[in-house]
């Protein structure tokens, strides 16, 4: 089996501040990884950097996805290749219905990352970078002419899409009314997280990062999200759960547990590591790694929940 996602000695800056200081991680399909660690240790930064958020600058290392470096690809192309990130704080997009959004997203996911043909007209003056990667040229098609946007009629036929959506909604025990609402507009915390899981179900990624899918949720909501993800896992999907709570891991049963502190993975192990953290907290790991006490904490620690 080839390795699906390889993170090689990754360094990430956020606004000139170095947050990730050399992280290496390999994730295969069918595996479930948990990344744990106190607040501010860089867990969310990793997932955002892998998804290609423009505010996160990769200063060293590489991300190899399906055998190819994806550092030069924009977020949408990474997603079309099969990466997914369930956000900790999903953004509201008023006026865009969940179903319209998902239909557009699934259409693009199915198309895959079709690379526009590189024609001389598509190259910019510097010569190496295809024109279509530039902001000004995003409307250009393969022939260098403006894309006919009416091709939106090539969206997945409504009937087929509705069938897919209905199936996923049923398996996640979600109401169809959900899909008529505007994207995250007026959603409760639990609804937002469930919508992220629904998106994951519809888009069927090969590697999915779940950034604190359990934060801000009550016990029942954690169970719903946990069971939802549990249903999605399979031999064709690798899942990385970022959390500092253990409850959700009781539904997901990770194969690997990694502990992050101060921008590095300081310890990796099996599920027993999670249990150990539950009993003893992070203090012993910090001591083991020789890190100063409480270095990374900006706020009061929330480990008491764990």
């Amino acid at each position: 089996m080839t390795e699906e996602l390889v993170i090689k000695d990754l360094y990430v800056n956020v606004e000139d501040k170095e947050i990730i200081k050399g992280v290496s991680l390999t994730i295969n399909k069918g595996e479930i990884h948990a990344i744990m660690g106190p607040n501010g240790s860089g867990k969310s930064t990793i997932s955002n950097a892998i998804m290609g958020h423009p505010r996160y600058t990769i200063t060293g290392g590489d991300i190899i996805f399906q055998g190819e470096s994806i550092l030069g690809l924009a977020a949408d192309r990474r997603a079309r290749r099969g990466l997914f990130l369930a956000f900790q704080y999903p953004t509201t997009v008023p006026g865009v219905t969940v179903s319209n959004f998902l239909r557009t997203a699934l259409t693009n996911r199915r198309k895959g990352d079709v690379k526009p043909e590189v024609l001389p007209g598509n190259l910019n003056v510097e010569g190496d970078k295809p024109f279509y990667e530039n902001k000004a040229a995003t409307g250009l098609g393969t022939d260098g002419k403006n894309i006919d946007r009416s091709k939106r009629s090539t969206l997945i036929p409504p009937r087929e899409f509705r069938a897919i959506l209905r199936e996923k909604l049923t398996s996640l025990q979600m109401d169809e009314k959900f899909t008529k609402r505007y994207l995250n507009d007026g959603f409760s915390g639990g609804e937002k997280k469930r919508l992220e899981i629904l998106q994951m179900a519809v888009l069927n990624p090969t590697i999915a990062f779940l950034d604190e899918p359990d934060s801000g949720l009550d016990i029942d909501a954690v169970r719903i999200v946990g069971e939802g993800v549990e249903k999605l896992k399979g031999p064709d999907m690798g899942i990385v759960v970022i959390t500092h709570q253990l409850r959700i891991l009781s539904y997901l049963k990770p194969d690997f547990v990694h502990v992050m502190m101060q921008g590095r993975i300081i310890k990796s192990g099996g599920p027993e590591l999670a249990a150990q953290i539950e009993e003893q907290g992070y203090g012993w790991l910090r001591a083991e790694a020789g890190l100063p006490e409480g270095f990374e904490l900006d706020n009061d620690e929330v480990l008491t929940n764990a």
Partner: protein
Amino acid sequence: MPETIELSRETGLSLEAVESLSAGKHEPAWMVQSRRDAWEMYQQLPMADWTRGIRGWWAGTVKETVFDGLKPFVAASTHDLNALPPAAKSLLRPQPLDDADEEDTSDVSGTSSDAAGVLVQYNSEVISTTLTEQVRSQGVILCSLDEAVQQHPDLVQRYFMTRAVKASENKFTALHAALWSGGVFLYVPKGVQIEQPVRAIYYMDDPALANFTHTLVIAEADSYVRLVEEHVSPNGPTQSIDCGIVEIFCGTQARTEYYDQQEWGDGVSNFTIKRAMVGKYGLHKWVVATLGSDLTRLNLDSVLEGEGARAETNGFTFPNGQQHFDVRNITRHTVPHTSADSLFKAVLNGTSQMGFEGIIRADKAAQDTDSHLLANTLYLNESCKAEVQPGLDVWANEVRCMHGATIGMIDDEQIFYLKSRGIPEEEARQLIVEGFFEGVIARVPLAGVRQRLRESIVRKLA
């Protein structure tokens, strides 16, 4: 009738042009006199100061001399709908008018697309009018205003530029009253309710035409009618203008709806007043999209003149390139117990400029007025410029009048969120802009109009 008019070879606006236009149409004496009087007013009235924009910061985009060389009348080069230019012909496609399932808009089979009537004006002449027998038999009249002057002079004399928009209002209305031609006349008798909309298509392609489009809708008591208008001309260098007027009379307990998609070509200057007079317990609804033209000055007004009257105004404005749009909305409450709800959505792209001024006016007698006005503006870049001014002018002391405005840019986080789901940036922006307009689009019950609005968003974003 029209074929005897020889004005198309003349240029320039003059009293002679007015008189020969009127003579060519064999108009009755009262209309001849009305045109002459209007021309007199045009000569005397000063150029309105709003030609520099609502706030006076536009460059002098409108000059009096712009009228030199314009032709006040251009005959339609054909009266055969099949011989129309392709751009005009494509407008004649039937529109799905049923409330189709939103997700099924690609599948229009099974939805009805019959309009109750269709009127087509090409340049200065109405070339085709159809009205279903079923509607005609109920006494509904749909014809050109030219024809109405001959056939229904009593109605025209009573309503045409008498109460809603008077010739004396400003220089442009006076010019309009002197030189109008063609036009839509829609009369719905008492108690007649037409579910199927009536369509009116204005198409022009003469590069030097001074077009004076006029729509007159009279909905008698307890009637119901919806009019869907389109104003279209090809892009390209032109000095043509459209100086249009829409007058709508919504009678006692009547319901009127007016939809307009203004897509004049990018060289047209457009000065338009649309005004509805709403009677007792009448309900009037505006959905007006301002998309085309180089320069637009739109007045979109409602006068609530009967107790219990209500007006719902939806403005949809999307300038791009170097377009200048000015939109002014006055909702005037003149009697007690009237209500209004106005929602204006504008997106600016390119280096376009937009001014919006919205006023809720409650006269002293208008106690218990309930009126809302909201204007949302979205910038797509930092080179466009908008000035948005909602305001209240309240003279009654028992009212609920509220106004508000928001202005902002697309949030990068929204773009990233959509991109992280595989949606390319351009498509993501399109979704967000569509979502922004959704508040207005969702208020349009006609699937065909919704589709046209969405298509235009896509075009304007390209």
